[in-house]
């Protein structure tokens, strides 16, 4: 199962057409996704952070691809949750792109495609999404301490915390303990 980037917009378009009003919130966020810089007047970020932030952005693009590709296999409450999380992931990508641009660098674009294997059930999709989200958590925890200035760390941390909430919901959907550890590392 792949999520061709070339059709990032057409894939999202198909998603919007097939899923109707339930994606209204996502539609608003999709229209806002353009990598524009956030918070005008914010301090310039050092160039050394560009690669780190682009690394987080690459993972974010991959996660967006996973949600986009997996949502058609979901239904009910998990579908609603995944749709909501996709919209939030798009907002994260927008924010990360803005942070990259403040370094003076170019924000990475999504890959043309991603290999997610062949999940054929809702449970398999949930496991895929859980793996994608926890990979993000681990990456954020490793990278954020190295970001300068502090405002960048706080911005990235706010994304980390939201992704952690995604993980909690996905774990519940998989009948797992939603918060198994006092220290969330992404390896739970």
């Amino acid at each position, binding site marked *: 199962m792949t999520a061709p980037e070339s059709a990032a917009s057409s894939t999202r378009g198909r998603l919007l057409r097939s899923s109707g009003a339930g994606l209204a919130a996502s539609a608003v966020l999709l229209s806002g996704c353009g990598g524009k810089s956030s918070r005008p007047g914010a301090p310039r970020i050092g160039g050394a952070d560009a690669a780190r932030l682009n690394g987080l952005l690459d993972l974010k693009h991959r996660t967006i691809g996973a949600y986009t590709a997996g949502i058609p296999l979901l239904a009910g409450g998990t579908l609603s949750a995944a749709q909501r999380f996709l919209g939030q992931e798009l907002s994260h990508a927008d*924010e990360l792109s803005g942070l990259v641009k403040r370094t003076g660098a170019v924000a990475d674009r999504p890959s043309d495609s991603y290999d997610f294997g062949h999940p054929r059930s809702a449970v398999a999709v949930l496991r895929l999404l859980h793996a994608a989200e926890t990979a993000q958590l681990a990456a954020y925890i490793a990278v954020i301490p190295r970001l300068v200035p502090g405002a960048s760390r706080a911005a990235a941390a706010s994304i980390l915390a939201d992704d*952690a*909430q995604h993980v909690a919901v996905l774990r519940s959907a998989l*009948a797992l303990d939603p918060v198994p550890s*006092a220290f969330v590392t992404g390896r739970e």
Partner: protein
Amino acid sequence: MSPDTRRELISRSILAGGLALATSLHAAEDAAARVEAAVRAEDAAGADALRALFEVERLAEVAYRQVLRSGVLAAGARRAARALLAHEQAHVGVLGAWLRAAGGRRPAPSAMDAPAAANVLAAHHVSGSLQNLRSEHEALRLLIAVEAAAERAYSRAVSRLRDPVRLGVSLEMMACDAQHATVLSELLYPGDVSRAVPGAFVPETR
């Protein structure tokens, strides 16, 4: 699925994580040992951030204890709250160790009594009282508000701390407290993911 069934499933899944909970307590000891072994001098802003984190996590610990003591929680919510309390205690342990390593004095565990907790609630703009809780709904809403205060404190701390080890562990605790809010919201509003994960950024600052 009825709200009660969903609540039971949530609490059972948390209970099933008992072994993971014990593991997390060992992880807390490891984390505290790592930080103590790598004593770093934070600047004034960082030291203040550590004290603020300790205060809000102590508040969370006191809040969970008080809520459990109040008797307003049903069985499922009570089991969940006990598990989350254990996490808060682990956070307090690590933060206390950091304060000692940074040369600060760690307040005694019993130092935050009800009046002190009320002051801290007010200082963090959390409305409500830990005294005379009248319903599970009120208790869960208060705990969610306390977790939100913790998120705001972590957000400020992450921008001010300098030591990468403390930053990393702070992020792990911040992520955990964000998950706490989600679990509590699911207990309060079963099946409503818009409440469980209300925004794209935690804390919501945009």
